[in-house]
């Protein structure tokens, strides 16, 4: 079998252990205790009433056996109708309460999941592949939802039916109960055998589903690239292969489940034969009527369905529990887990005395994404309040990493990063990267992510400051035009302007710009440089610059190479020094002005 596995270098996101998963489920249920009790009571009452059906039918048999007139049957028949109505309405109420309980818990869980997912450290998400996260957000949530919607109410009903039926059998005669219990060891053994085999299989199924989802997103999200390079067949094949691999695993699961049923049929036969033999013996010895024996046989027969569905629900419960564990694994991360958790450096302080310390203090910082491959090898940097510092250096010099550490996206492997800012609302530091994602939905909604309470006037003002208001007003529906995936397409420049407008709205004392003007090409770059200039006004700023014009206007230029700071000073000072910056400036201004 060709099972598709994820890339070897992947480290999937955490999955919770069984005990922790249960504890999390109980925690989710806690605020709804009353609802849970009400739901249970309604279902128990409905099931209990329903169990009157068999004795009533047995009573009819006895009446016939005693050769009573046909009119005598009217009373039990009417009673059967009443039982049906009571059982129906009780079940409807109970099921609706159970759904409300389950769905409310589920909503809480998926919200907590998204909340924690958004606070996961970036490198962890990248190592796992965002397909993993997306699969959990879509596939696992939907699987648990399905279980909550169907398995949970069904399981509640089945378990109640089983327990109450055993009780009813004992009421008829304890020996009937004994006979019926003969089936239990077979069922228990079967269930144990099943769970033992199913758990690892489901785990592999989950992995295969994750791979399939990743391939689907690769193909669908990158459709434009796929078409340009005529890779349609290759990508269709990849999806087909991973989908087929998931199908094969599912079919292995199906075969396992069906073997499980075969064994349950054996248990059914054993129990039924035992109850019939018990009836035979009890009627012959005169300790039970034919009607009672009939009721007992009917009881046991009517147990097949709930026993089977309860045991099958083991199946759904297994896959739902696996999904739940994957959700809880992420949802359960403590919310205060250092800088990554909040997205803002833990060392970032906003307090009234914030101006006493320099705005940014970097001390002896080393960083490596992977052990043994250092990106930063000992960086010290102090940025004063209101100072604008440009980071310059060749690709791979460590500029972006330093920017991310200062912005608190990652925590340094060694050393410390401290950002201090005067007290005020909002984050102390904001990072605008070359990664410009425009969130799907109305443009105003995207901007309000930066400041949820911003008025339309605030939004327009921020857009005006980055020269974006003209085109925003020209959009079909202005500020509320749907943008992002599936909406109005924005150009690279426009998306960067949106990113800068978000920065203005978030209004942090310290801003880090990482190649924020690079994506648009030089035509848009001029617009963006002007916009960035305005967005940074009045802030302490760190700008990672490839375009040296941006560096030339900074208060100070810091040149990096091989993970270290090699030069630092003003534009003229560094040019005069004739070092690396001078050389870079020369090669750059050459390309800008001279012709070959």
């Amino acid at each position, binding site marked *: 079998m060709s099972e598709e596995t994820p890339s070897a270098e992947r480290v999937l996101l955490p999955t919770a252990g069984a005990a922790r998963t249960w504890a999390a489920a109980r925690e989710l249920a806690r605020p709804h205790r009353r609802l849970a009790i009400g739901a249970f009571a309604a279902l128990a009452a409905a099931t209990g009433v329903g169990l009157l059906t068999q004795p009533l039918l047995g009573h009819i048999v006895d009446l016939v056996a005693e050769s009573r007139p046909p009119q005598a049957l009217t009373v039990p028949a009417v009673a059967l109708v009443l039982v049906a109505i009571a059982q129906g309405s009780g079940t409807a109420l109970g099921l609706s309460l159970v759904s409300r309980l389950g769905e409310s818990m589920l909503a809480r869980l998926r*919200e907590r999941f998204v909340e924690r997912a958004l606070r996961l450290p970036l490198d962890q998400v990248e190592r796992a592949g965002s397909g993993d996260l997306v699969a959990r957000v879509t596939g696992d949530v939907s699987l648990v939802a399905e279980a909550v919607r169907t398995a949970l109410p069904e399981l509640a009903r089945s378990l109640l039916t089983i327990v109450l039926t055993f009780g009813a059998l004992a009421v008829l005669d304890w020996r009937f109960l004994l006979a019926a219990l003969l089936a239990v060891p077979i069922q228990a053994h079967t269930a144990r055998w099943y769970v033992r085999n199913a758990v690892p299989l489901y785990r592999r199924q989950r992995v295969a589903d994750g791979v399939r989802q990743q391939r689907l997103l690769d193909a669908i999200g990158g459709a434009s690239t796929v078409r340009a390079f005529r890779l349609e067949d290759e990508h*269709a094949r990849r999806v087909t292969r991973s989908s087929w691999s998931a199908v094969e695993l599912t079919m292995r699961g199906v075969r396992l489940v*069906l073997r499980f049923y075969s064994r349950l049929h054996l248990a059914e036969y054993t129990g039924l034969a035992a109850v019939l033999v018990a009836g035979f013996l009890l009627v012959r010895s005169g300790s039970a009527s034919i009607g009672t024996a009939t009721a007992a046989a009917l009881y046991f027969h009517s147990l097949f369905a709930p026993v089977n569905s309860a045991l099958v629900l083991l199946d759904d419960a297994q896959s739902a529990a696996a999904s739940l564990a994957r959700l809880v694994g992420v949802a359960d991360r403590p919310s205060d887990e250092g800088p990554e958790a909040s997205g803002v450096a833990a060392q970032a302080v906003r307090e009234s005395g914030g101006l006493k310390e320099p705005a940014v203090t970097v001390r002896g910082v080393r960083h490596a994404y992977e052990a043994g491959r250092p990106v930063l090898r000992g960086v010290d940097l102090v940025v004063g309040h209101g100072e604008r510092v440009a980071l310059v250096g060749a690709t791979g010099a460590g500029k972006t990493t330093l920017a991310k550490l200062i912005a608190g996206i990652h925590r340094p492997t060694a050393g410390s990063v401290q950002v201090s800012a005067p007290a005020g609302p909002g*984050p102390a530091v904001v990072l605008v990267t070359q990664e410009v994602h425009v969130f799907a939905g109305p443009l105003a909604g995207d901007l309000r992510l930066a*400041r949820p309470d911003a008025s339309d006037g605030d939004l327009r003002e921020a857009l005006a400051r980055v020269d974006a208001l003209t085109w925003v007003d020209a959009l079909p529906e202005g500020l509320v035009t749907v943008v992002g*995936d599936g909406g109005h397409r924005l150009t690279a420049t426009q998306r960067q302007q949106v990113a800068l407008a978000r920065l203005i709205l978030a209004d942090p004392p310290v801003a880090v710009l990482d190649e924020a003007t690079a994506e648009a*090409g030089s*035509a848009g770059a001029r617009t963006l440089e002007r916009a960035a200039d305005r967005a940074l006004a009045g802030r302490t700023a760190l700008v990672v610059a490839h375009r040296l014009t941006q560096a030339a206007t900074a208060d100070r230029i810091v040149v990096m190479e091989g993970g270290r700071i090699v030069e630092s000073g003003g534009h003229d000072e560094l040019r005069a020094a004739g070092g690396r910056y001078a050389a870079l400036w020369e*090669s750059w201004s050459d*390309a800008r002005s001279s012709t070959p």
Partner: protein
Amino acid sequence: MSGSGAGPIGAPGREVLLGAVRGQRRDVALGAVLGAAHQTGEALVPVLIGVVIDQAVAGGDAGALARGLAVLAVVYVGLSFGFRFGARAGERAAEQAAHTLRTRLVRRVLHPGGGAEQGRLPGALATIATEDAKRVGAVAMAVMAGTSALAGLLVGAVVLLRISVPLGLVVLLGTPLLLWLGHLLGKPLERRSEAERERAAYSSGVAADLVTGLRVLKGLGAEPAAVARYRRTSRDSLVATLRAARAEAAQNGVVLALTGCFIALVALTGGRLAAEGRISLGELVSALGLALFLLGPLEVFAWVNADLAQGRASARRVAEVLAAPPAVTAGGALPPRIVRGAVRLRGVAHGGLREVDLEVAPGELLGVAATDPADATALLRCLGRQADPGTGTVELDGVSLRELDPADVRAAVLVAEHEADLFEGTLRDNVAAAMPGDAPPGTLDRAMAAAGADEIARALPRGADTVVSERGRSLSGGQRQRVALARALAADRPVLVVHDPTTAVDAVTEARIAAGIRELRRGRTTILLTTSPALLAVTDRVILLHEGRVGDAATHADLVRRHPGYRAAVLS
């Protein structure tokens, strides 16, 4: 999401649904036959219970008890076998039908004509390809299960008719009535289930979008705002779900009550017949057992109904994607066998472009500097035939692109977009993705070197064999651009259009890449859409695209000298 509001399934949806079942007819038929055997066995169990009670328990006959239990054992073996292999066939049909649809959906989305992703979030499309395909596939299983249940119902009815005609008639007339009532009750459920699915798809789309924008949220510290937004979506979804769940619970309750009343009717009728001596006591027990057994198939009908409702709603969504109109269609002309690489635009108007006339000689290295980035995008879309211009024509070797199959156009003309995605696989896999099979040895290395991607490979833990995760997200912006450029160069197409390939690359490397492109593409048509002077400096000729028209055309040096607008656009 466009056009997916509540509504009837429509002919294309029905076609998808029927096609899914028809495609698996062998498994569905096998499953139905074996499932019917299983249901027959299940129907015989209560009959046998009646026989045992009548002949063994009431009569006190141990021999009859032994015979009855032996027959029961045989019936159990049969029903167990029928179930195991019948259900296996049904599940196989469901899984294979879903798999086939999934494959078709992906092929449609990737079709050279495009157009399927218009107006749909990638996350929502992925949900259609997984969840909706699964629900449509489940219809194959539902059809099989429904057929088997019907068989069980019929066996029960026949036995009942043989016991007594009036009793049999009560069952035969009563069950369709019950089914019809169940169907009637299921109708509103279908509408609600649809609304609920849309909500769920939307809310999972929102979640996926937020997760995709994780980096932006983190940079902004906007996670709390994003969480609040998702919570609102999730709450809306919860309200819709609870409405659907209440409707479903009510339907369950009513079906249960109706079924109970029906059994009371059977018991009363059978009891009277027995009291009058027209049927035996054992037959009464069998009849009652059968009436109880009939609950099973009836409940199967209930879930089959629900599955069909969901399947119909999903089939409509699947059909909408499959039937999405393509953005461009294939013309009748055959592509030139040997592409010379002459590209000509005549009076092209598209997006911001107005009357663009442009001629690129075979083998020329042309620079195009657009003052408005939107114009550059519009030009790219026309050159790669992602869209046809509103007016005017784009020609390759004198043939209008509109006459050609978009796939053939792209075999000759590669448009390497600025935001190209990388894919799962190693660095080498990515670069070699579109390399022709007959490419001379060393093509890959030359392309990597020209794009400056060799440097990246050297810096990675496993060189070119390092796995690029997450559509290239494990690489930096500049690294990703260079790998994407190397891929475009390695594809070795007669015409190559590259859009801003070096925006995230430092000045020193950019100059090297410019020289590399010039060297590697010597003699083949290449268009560089950029405002980077380092790149424009190596071109044979530069076109300035200003306000949607060709503003000027000359060498980079001449333009710099004579055109202030060009200087402003390129040398900032």
